[in-house]
């Protein structure tokens, strides 16, 4: 015979209370399990989106895919491909799939603090929807990735700065030189002393400048004189009694002389014709040799005379033509 081991303590509605507690517990557990299943998208059709990334650091299963800051999907699983890339399978609920279009871009962002984020960007919502199991590249923008490069660059810059500020650096030397120059500049001759390197050299420059000044004054006088000479020359050459007028006259004289010369030459021609005749008739020649030679002597005197006249005329012209002479302006 069995008997209850616990001696019936009087508890009101014991069975009801325990039943209620059990029912409620079961209800809570079942509802919660259903809720987690719903949360994991068990009751909803989902599309799969495959993102291919070179590196999946920071990506974990269950990580959200956010669009405009709203989670529209989550990483379901990840695997390495044959060529070392990562295939991230993202489940996107059917009702959220409209945010993803064929032109959408997916990025993986990693900040200094906190986990990575997968984001979707869709600029044109009129493009066709992304099909199920579409494969897209996951662009990674990692702020921390650039830090080592940045540090290396900064290091190089700092080394340069260190080299610049060292006591024997070229900048310091340049500054020393600048100081020397500016110190000189404070001397009697100012900037000139600084540039030329000493007061004596500056002194020389000043002297040279003074001399150049006086030279310029003299040159001024000279150019005035040259001016007056030129005016006089002008008058003499181109004036009514000027050289040119006289040249004109001389040329007329020359013409006349040339006429004389032509006459003389004609005569010479005739003489030569006679001479030809004479050679043709040797006997006549021999007869007339005396007369011919007398004639030749006259001709020669006449030719000589003509040439002398021309010579004289040319001398005359030369004298009157001012520029033919060697005009030399002697500066004082």
């Amino acid at each position, binding site marked *: *015979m*069995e*008997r*209850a*081991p*616990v001696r019936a*303590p009087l*508890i009101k509605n*014991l*069975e009801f*209370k*325990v039943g209620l*507690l*059990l029912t*409620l*517990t079961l209800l*809570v*557990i079942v509802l*919660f*399990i259903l*809720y*987690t299943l*719903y*949360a*994991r*998208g068990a009751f909803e059709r989902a599309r799969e989106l495959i993102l291919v990334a070179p590196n999946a650091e920071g990506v974990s299963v*269950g990580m*959200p895919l956010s669009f405009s800051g*709203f*989670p529209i999907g*989550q990483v379901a699983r990840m695997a390495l491909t044959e060529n070392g890339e990562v295939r991230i399978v993202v489940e996107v609920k059917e009702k959220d799939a409209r945010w993803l279009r064929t032109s959408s871009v997916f990025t993986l962002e990693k900040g200094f*603090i*906190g*986990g990575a984020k997968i984001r979707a960007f869709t600029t044109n919502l009129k493009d066709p929807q992304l099909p199920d199991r579409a494969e897209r590249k996951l662009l990674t923008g990692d702020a921390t990735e650039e830090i080592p490069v940045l540090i290396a660059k900064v290091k190089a810059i700092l080394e340069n700065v260190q080299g610049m500020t060292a006591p024997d650096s070229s900048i310091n030397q340049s500054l020393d030189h600048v100081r020397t120059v500016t110190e000189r500049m404070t001397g009697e001759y100012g900037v000139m002393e600084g540039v030329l390197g000493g007061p004596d050299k500056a002194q020389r420059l000043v002297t040279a400048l003074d001399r150049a000044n006086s030279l310029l004054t003299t040159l001024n006088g000279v150019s005035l004189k040259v001016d007056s000479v030129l005016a006089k020359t002008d008058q003499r050459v181109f004036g009514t009694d000027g050289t040119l007028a006289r040249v004109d006259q001389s040329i007329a004289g020359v013409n006349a002389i040339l006429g004389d010369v032509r006459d003389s030459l004609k005569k010479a021609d005739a003489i030569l014709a006679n001479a030809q005749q004479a050679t043709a008739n040797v006997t006549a020649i021999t007869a007339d040799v005396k007369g011919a030679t007398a004639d030749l002597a006259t001709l020669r005197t006449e030719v000589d005379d003509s040439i002398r006249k021309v010579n004289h005329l040319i001398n005359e012209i030369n004298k009157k033509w001012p520029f033919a002479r060697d005009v030399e302006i002697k500066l004082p």
Partner: protein
Amino acid sequence: MPFLASLLTRRGAATLNWLRGWNGLTRFGAGAVVEALTPSFYNSATRSVVQKQIYFTAWQILPGYGLFAALLSFVIIQIVVSKARDFGLSDYALEMTMRVLVLELLPLITALFVALRSGAAINTEVALMNINNEIKALREAGVDPMRFEFVPRVIGGMISVVSLISFSSIVALVLAYLVVYGWQLSGFADFTRVIAKVFVPLAMFGLILKALAFGLAVTVIPISAGLNAPQKLFFAPISVLQGMVRLFFVLMIIEVASLALQYI
């Protein structure tokens, strides 16, 4: 060297005793589980004991414990959320509170609470029954004490612990939602996403398994400790002490094991 010999003897005896205790505990626990899984075990008498155990362990303390759990959860959620906001990590605040409270802290605290309240009582009762030869008497009267005294308590204790953990966890989740999103429904989608992230199948399975293990430990260890006590009255407090220390140790082992399974 009589000192060393006696020391070694005493140590050896203590170790053997300790091992005997664990051995008895394991055998008792395995037997209780086998009994609980046998359908013929359940009849009106055992059901009555189970009901009473649930009544005393869960129903009686539910309001007080619920209030305590709510207060503790609220304080921890507030701290986590505000600190996370300070550090600019508010995206992770909700996940953090769920992991800390629902998955780890509340089950452990519930188990400790039940262990202190009911575990100690069961241990004392069984130890006294043992000392007073009541168990022997029951057995002689043809009543299997295992079947009518101990296993119903184990089952009741397990159900109580699971029930208390479920309610306190739901309270913590509702509070977390209210603290993070306030009295509005707009955060539901976000909340659902975090739930999906935290309560993955492995975590759910681990949580249920952990709750059951806590419930088992909280009743099995005190009963076993009471049964193993020598039949002398002054051994009763020692039995309770040993049982409680062992219980605490086992609870911590279960917690560490569940943490290691999920995060390592």
